[in-house]
Structure formats: C-alpha cells, structure tokens
C-alpha cells in the first residue's frame, strides 16, 4: 500500500504538486533581510520543479506523441465520505500544468528587482500558489478539486495585497470575494451531487470525477447545478459581465502576480468548463449555450474595444485578456474537435504571450515607475532589445502567422464556424481589433521621437531580463511553426471527451436521477486496445 510520502518521493504527480509546498517550508525560517538568498533559493526550487515536470512528461508521453490518462495511486483521504486523494493527468491538463511550471522561474526572474521587501514570504506565496494551481488542474476528485481551488485564493490574495500598487487592498479583497462567491455555490452543487450519488449507490459515498460523471440527471436539476459551476468558472475566466475584478487585480498586482494570474489562474476557468461544467451537465450546457455564446462574443468585442481606449499599458493587456479568453470560450462552446484543440492551444498561447507582455510592462515599470503610454515614446532608440521583445510578443498576441496566436485563433474560428455559424463570424472582428489596440500600444511607446527627457537614459534589458523572455519567445515561435507537436498530446483525449459529450447531449432527458453503469476494467482495456 503506497503512502502519500511514498508518492512524494517518486516521479509522480504528487511530487509535481507538493514539491513547491515542501520547498516553501524553509522560507519561513529566512530572516527578513535575506532577500538575495531567498531569491536564489526560490529560483533553484522552481528550476527543480521544472525538471520534475520534464521528467514526468518524458516518462509518460506516448510514442505516437499522445498523452494517455495517468493516475497517481489513489489514496483514501476522508474515508467516511469516500473522499479520495486522486491526482491524474491527461491530454487536457498536461499542457496547462507544464505551462504553469514553465512560467514559475520566469516569474521569479521577472520579479527580481520589482519586489523589494519580504522576499521570503513572496517566494513562499508563489510556491504555495503553484501547489494550489497544479492541484486544481490535476485533481480527479471533486472535493479535492474544490480544496485546491480555494487554496489558490490565499497566496494570490497575499501577492496582490502585500506587493501591489496603490489600491492593492481593494483589488485583493475584490479578487478574493468575487472568486469565492462563485465557488461557494459550486460547493453546494458538489455536495448535492455527492449526496445524490450516495443515495443512488446504496449509501456508498464518492466524490470521484468518474463516479459523478455516471450521474444521469434530469434537465431541471442539471440546470441548477450547471448554473453553479458555470458561474464559478465564468467569474474565473472571466466572462463578461463578471470581469470587473480582473482589471483591478492586474493593475494592482506586482508583475509576478499578473503573470501568474493571466498565465495560469484564468485558464482554470476555461479548464473548468472543459473538464467539469460541460461533461457533467450536457443537457443543461446545451440549453445555456446561446446565453454563454452571447457572453463570449460580447466579451471578445467589449474587451477589445475597452482595451483600445486604455492609456495604461497594464490595463490594456488586462482587457485584451478578456477578449482572448472570450475566444477560448467560443471554441469550447462550439463542441467541435478542431475548435476544442484550438481552445486548448489558445489557453497556452495566451499564457505565453500575455505573460511576456506583463513581464515587459513590469520591466518598464521597474525603470520608470509608470505604465502610462504618454510617459513613453521612442523607446526603440534607447532600448532596442526591449523594443524587439515587445513587438515580438505583441505580434504573437495579435495572431501573426508563424507565431502561436495565429494557430490557436485560426483553429477556434474555423472549428466554431463549422458548428455555430455567424457568432464565429462576428468574433472574427475581435482579431482585427486586437491588431488595432496592440499596434497602438507599440506605436505610442517605442516608435516616434523621444518626448520625455527621463527616457533618454533608460538602460536596456539586462541579461537576467532577457533570460526571462527568451524561453517564452522560443516557445511562441515553436508553436507557430510546428503546432502539431503541441496538438498531438491532447488530440486523443479531446476526441474521447467530445464523443462522450455529444452522445450524452443527444440522449433524451430523463424523469428521475439515475446512475449509469460503471465502466468496468474490461471495457477500459478494450478502449485502450482500440486506440
């Protein structure tokens, strides 16, 4: 019988999730002034975590480039309620998990100068946040998922509230309350589902994803449960009109916080739709589709238009996130395999390009302590390397062919046009608008004459800053040129999930809640063999 600590020692998901927590413990014993030591320690820890991630990937990536569903040994956690400690990775969670692990060292490099006090606590918060995020992405038990989902909140709250800007407390509290408002209703929904499962299953409790997936619920029950889940995830994404916390959180958060927030935290919302809200409640999601589509398309256009009129670089990037994630939602709602692949890829793309943009804005802020366009202009003359990276990241975000954004958006739009028709056509305008606002930002900051004297002596990017940006740019180019490497691991998983989802959508509504028969081991083996 394996134990938790046994898992922690092996090449397992448990190690991926909990190594950051273990690494955070010594930080509590660093003195307040030991900034330098803490920085180096956290950087090394994050690189070790990255190595663990690569090792795990190497051990499980299939010969054909596909990524199968891999479970860690399932342990009992709260046995009275059948709550299990069950982590699993498949083609959907794998890219997001690796993105999260990959961004962590870059975030630390990007915060090197910007964070001036309480470095041990900053590092600990980052590491604990990673545990929460990775856990939420990998949890295969809904109780466990909920716990990780909430665990994410506290470190992020600290990141914004301690190292943030002027209105940091307002932003931090708003972030916390918005997120929690949704998730508490989701808790009730999870409890209701577990209780119903227990009632139908002869008193045996379970919160396992596979078990709750067996629930065959009538539409009128699904609608409520879907509403609770969808609200939670829609706030996290964030979809219009639940987006108001995002600009506040981004503007006030320190650079590192913004990168993590945009890079991974928001993806948990779209991931939640893909993993939980759609497959668990197929009929309800079908009913709610027009509404969600309207919100997604509105979000795309609204986010882009608002981004256009911003005068603050960080706010612009924040609103552009709303638009980009609108595309992801559009693709998920299309229920088409190409669109889903595009959505998943676009989640990663957004993490890379927006992460890079936030890092760049942060580097500028470290030098000038402002993020307003009109304070800059002509930076290409004094900071050519900076200008190169800014143009590169912006073009990736706009969707220039041969860079990553193009692939994702193209797949989403073609895929969703196939099943949805005109909403996809309307959303295409979002791509045009993205070009307008990002090019506006580039023009106002780095082209043209230098108008402010302070800008004449700005130092160009240091080696450390370049080191934080190069990996991002390499990946952007790689995805843009050879997207198949990144699409292949998740194709099989997405096809399976989509086939099951479609099949369930087509099933007639039932009168009463019932349980579908459990998939037996033999059937699983048969499907595996069929691959």
């Amino acid at each position, binding site marked *: 019988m394996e134990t938790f600590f046994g898992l922690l020692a092996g090449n397992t998901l448990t190690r991926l999730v909990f190594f950051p927590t273990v690494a955070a413990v010594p930080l509590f014993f660093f003195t307040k002034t030991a900034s330098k030591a803490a920085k180096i320690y956290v950087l090394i820890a994050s690189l070790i975590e990255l190595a663990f991630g690569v090792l795990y990937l190497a051990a499980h990536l299939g010969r054909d480039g596909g990524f199968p569903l891999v479970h860690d040994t399932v342990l009992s956690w*709260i046995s009275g309620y059948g709550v299990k400690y069950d982590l699993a990775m498949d083609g959907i969670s794998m890219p997001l998990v690796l993105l999260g692990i990959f961004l962590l060292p870059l975030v630390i490099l990007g915060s090197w100068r910007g964070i001036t006090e309480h470095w041990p606590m900053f590092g600990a918060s980052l590491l604990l946040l990673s545990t929460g995020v990775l856990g939420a992405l990998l949890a295969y038990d809904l109780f466990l998922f909920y*716990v990780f989902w909430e*665990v994410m909140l506290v470190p992020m709250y600290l990141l914004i*509230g301690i190292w943030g800007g002027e209105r940091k407390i307002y932003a*931090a*509290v708003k972030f916390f309350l918005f997120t929690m408002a949704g998730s*508490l209703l989701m808790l*009730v929904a999870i*409890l209701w589902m577990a209780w119903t499962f227990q009632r139908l299953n002869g008193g045996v409790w379970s919160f396992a994803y596979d078990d709750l997936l067996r629930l065959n619920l009538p539409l009128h029950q699904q609608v409520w449960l879907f509403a609770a889940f969808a609200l939670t995830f829609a706030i996290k994404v964030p979809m219009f009109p639940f987006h108001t916390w995002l600009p506040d959180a981004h503007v006030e958060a320190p650079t590192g916080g913004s990168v993590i927030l945009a890079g991974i935290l928001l993806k948990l919302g779209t991931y939640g739709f893909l993993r939980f809200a759609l497959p668990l409640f197929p009929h309800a999601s079908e009913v709610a589709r027009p509404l969600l589509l309207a919100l997604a398309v509105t979000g795309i256009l609204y986010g882009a238009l608002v981004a256009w009129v911003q005068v603050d670089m960080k706010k612009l990037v924040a609103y552009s996130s709303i638009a980009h994630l609108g595309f992801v939602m559009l693709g998920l709602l299309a229920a088409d395999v190409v669109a889903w692949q595009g959505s998943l890829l676009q989640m990663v793309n957004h993490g890379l390009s927006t992460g890079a943009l936030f890092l760049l804005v942060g580097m500028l802020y470290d030098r000038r302590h402002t993020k307003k366009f009109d304070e800059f202009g002509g930076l290409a003359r004094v900071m050519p390397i900076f200008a190169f990276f800014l143009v590169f990241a912006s073009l990736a975000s706009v969707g220039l062919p041969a860079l990553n954004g193009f692939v994702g958006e193209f797949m989403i739009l073609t895929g969703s046009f196939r099943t949805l028709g005109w909403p996809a056509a309307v959303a295409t305008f979002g791509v045009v608008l993205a070009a307008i606002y990002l090019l506006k930002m580039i023009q106002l900051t780095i082209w043209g004459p230098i108008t402010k004297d302070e800008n004449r002596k700005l130092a160009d990017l240091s080696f450390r800053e370049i080191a934080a940006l190069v990996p991002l740019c390499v990946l952007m180019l790689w995805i843009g040129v050879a997207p198949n490497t990144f699409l292949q691991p998740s194709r099989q998983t997405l096809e399976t999930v989509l086939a099951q989802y479609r099949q369930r959508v087509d099933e007639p509504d039932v009168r009463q809640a019932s349980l579908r028969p459990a998939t037996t081991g033999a059937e699983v083996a048969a499907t595996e063999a069929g691959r």
Partner: protein
Amino acid sequence: MSTHFDWMLLLPELVLTAAGVVILLLEAIAPSLRRSFTALAVLATLGAGYAAYYVTPLHHVVASRAGTFNGLIETSPLTFAFTLVVLLSTVLSLLASQSYLRREGILAGEYHALLLWCAVGLLLMLRATELLTVFLALETLSLCLYCLAAFHRRISISSEAAIKYFLMGAFVSAFALYGIALVYGATGSTRFLGIGRALAAQPFTNVLASLGFLFLVAAFGFKMSIAPFHAWSPDTYQGAPSPFVAFLSVAPKVASALVLYRLLEAVVQGGTAPNSHKWSTAVAFLSVASMLVGNFLALVQRDVKRMLAYSGVAHMGYLLLALVVVDRASLMPVLVYLLAYVLMNAGAFTVVSLLYSRPGEQHLIADLAGWGYRYPLLGGCLAVCMLSLGGIPPTLGFLGKYVVFLNAVGDGLVGLAVIGVLASLVGVFYYLRVVYYLYMKPETRQPEGLLIDVWGRTAAVLAALGTLALGLWPTGLLQWLMQATAVK
C-alpha cells in the same frame, strides 16, 4: 429502577472540583506559588480528560447508556466526545490566561478555581438526562461565569460586562426554570426520555408544553448567543478579560448545543408529533436570523472582540443548520463544527489577549497593522484562525462547514445551505480584514506593556496547528465522532 449511586462515574467532575479547592487553599496558605497555578489547573483538566476516558464504557458498543444517580447522569461515548471538546477549550483558556493575569497584576488562584468550576458545570450540563439537573448545572456554570467576567475589577468596562451578563443571565435562568415547570406540567416528566414518550403518546397540541419549550429554547439560545438572544455577547466579550472570553465564547455553547439537541429530539421523538415540523421551521428561522444578523453586524465592527462576538452569532447560525432536521445524524456535524469553533475562536482570542495591552480600551483591528511581521508566530496563528473562521480549506473551519452543509443538503434543505454559503461569503470579508491589517498595512503603533509568555504562545500554536492538522487529516477524527454519535 434501583437506587444507584456510582460516584466513580463522576470522577471527571470530582477531579476538577477538587483541583479548584486545592488551588483556592494554596492561594490562601502559599500565595508565592501563584505562578504555578496555571500548570496545576492544566494538569487537573488533563486529568479530568483521562478520568472521562476511564469511566466511559467505550468498548461496550451496545449498552453504553451507563448512568449514575438513577440515570440522571449519562456516561456514553457521546458525552465523552462533548466532554473532551469542553476540556480542550478549558485548557486553551487556562494557557492563555497566565500572561494576561500577570500583566494586569491580578494573578490569583480564584481565577483558576472559578474556571475549573465552570468546566464542572458544563460537564454536568452535557451529561444530564433530566431538566432539573441541567438547571442546577447551568446555575453552577453561570455563577462562575459572572464572577470571571468581572474578574478585572479595577477597570469599569469589565464590571459593566459582568453586570450586563448577570442581569440578562439571571432573567434567562428564570425563563429556563419556568419553562421546566411548564413542560413538567404538560408531560409529567423532567427527563428528556420521559418528555419524549409523553409527547409521542399524546398529540402535541398542548399550549403549556409549547410555551415551556419556547422558554427553554430561548434560555439555551441565550447561552449560545443565537439571534435574537445575542444582544449581551458583544458588550460582555468586549469588557471581560480576553483569555476568559476564549472560554466564554465557546465552552458554554458546546454544552448548550447538546442540551438543545436533546430538547428538540424529545419534541420530534416518534416522528409522528404533528407540530414537530413547526419546530423545524422555528430552528430554521433562528439559524437564518443568526447568520444574517451575526455576519452583517460583524461587518461594521472596528473592535476585534466585538467583531468576534458577532461572528460567533453567525457561527451558531451555521451550527443550527444541522439541528433543523433533528436526528442522530445531526450530532456529528454539530460536534465537528463545535470542535472547529473551539480551536479557531480560542486561538483568535488568545492572540488578541497577548497583543493588546490595555484591556480597558477598544481593541481596534487597525491597531494590528503591520504586526504580522513584528510577531510572525502570533500573527501567523491569528491569520490561520481567521481563515479557518472564514471557512477556507484546508482548515478545520472548512471541514465543519462542509459537514454541516452536507447534512443540510442531505436533509433536503438546499435553500438553507445556499443562504448559509452566501452568508459565509460576507464573513470572509471581515475575517480577511484582520489578515490585511496584519500583513498589508504599515505599522501604526509600537508595542508597549505586552507580556508574551510561553504559555500563551503554546495556546495559540496549539489552536492554529490543530485547525490545520485536523483539516488536512480529518479521517480519524470523523471516524471517532461517527462512532461516538452513532451509539444509541
């Protein structure tokens, strides 16, 4: 029933009583030993815990309603579990008290003796199977509580707290006694079992009995500070010595919750009583009222002790969710919630007691600004307790809410559960306020006159670690409580 006095079964109470007497005598003959009274009292409490373990027939799963004094006092795994929760809060409060008493120059044996006797009253109250015994225990408890609330007699706010508590408490005792009389008149029994049988036999339309129950619910609602019987608690908490409030705000609620459960169980016994659903509605009303009143009033408090007082009202509201539909399955959520509440609330009051040096003045939350860095250990403990009070996983506070809401959902009370979670969202707002003052605001005051000793630190760390550890590894706790509450 043969007359049967088994003094052994009263061993826990006897240990505590004797320890109180010994401490009082030592105070008189050897006052130089005062500093060791805390250790003595803690030892006695631990001894009482062992005695409770010793006398409880843990291994006879079936016939465990062993009792003494003609069955007036119950000894079962259930009372054992409640006993341990009460003793835990006693220990935490004792540990927190030493530094407060020394700092204020009022270290005296009476304090420890009174606190131990409070615990005696509580243990008797939760073990009593009969209303008059409950009443006697309640009076024992209340007298000691009044004295302790006034213990810092040099500052007027402490006396004010005690007077307010005493006046209302005396009034409520009268209510309780009157209620007992009415119920006895209507059913011919003061035993919970007898009352239940009588009510099951005759249709429950009796005005006398209804009125009697109403009075009793009001009385125990007062002790638990359930809205609308909560008005005393903010003033009393604010004025009474902080480490004592760590006890006052939790322990009486533990025993009262069990008494309330027994009352409601008697009402619904047999399941046929036509009026029992009205009691469900009434409890649901009290629960929702407490959640709303507690949370919204706590939202506007600037004094941390008053904030915790109102938040306590809200917590009792969540607890009552488990008692809306009364069956044996309600007890497990109640116990888990109470245990969580004991740990996190006692932890919070301990830190408050250590970090505020002027008990006569307001304990402003804003005064904690930036102290999370000055006192990393205590600040961290307070933050953990606050997050636990807010119900954030992976703390025991979350687990308590989880079992309570799950119980409510299982009873078909999804609407109430939704109100509960939304109310707790309001709660998160004011608990977070403490955290952001601790870590996100610049310091505004220098510490002066603080006395932070190892006892107080131990209490804070025990409470914070307890909420975290039991939140992470709850299986053993839940299994034990499940067994303790399942035995009939």
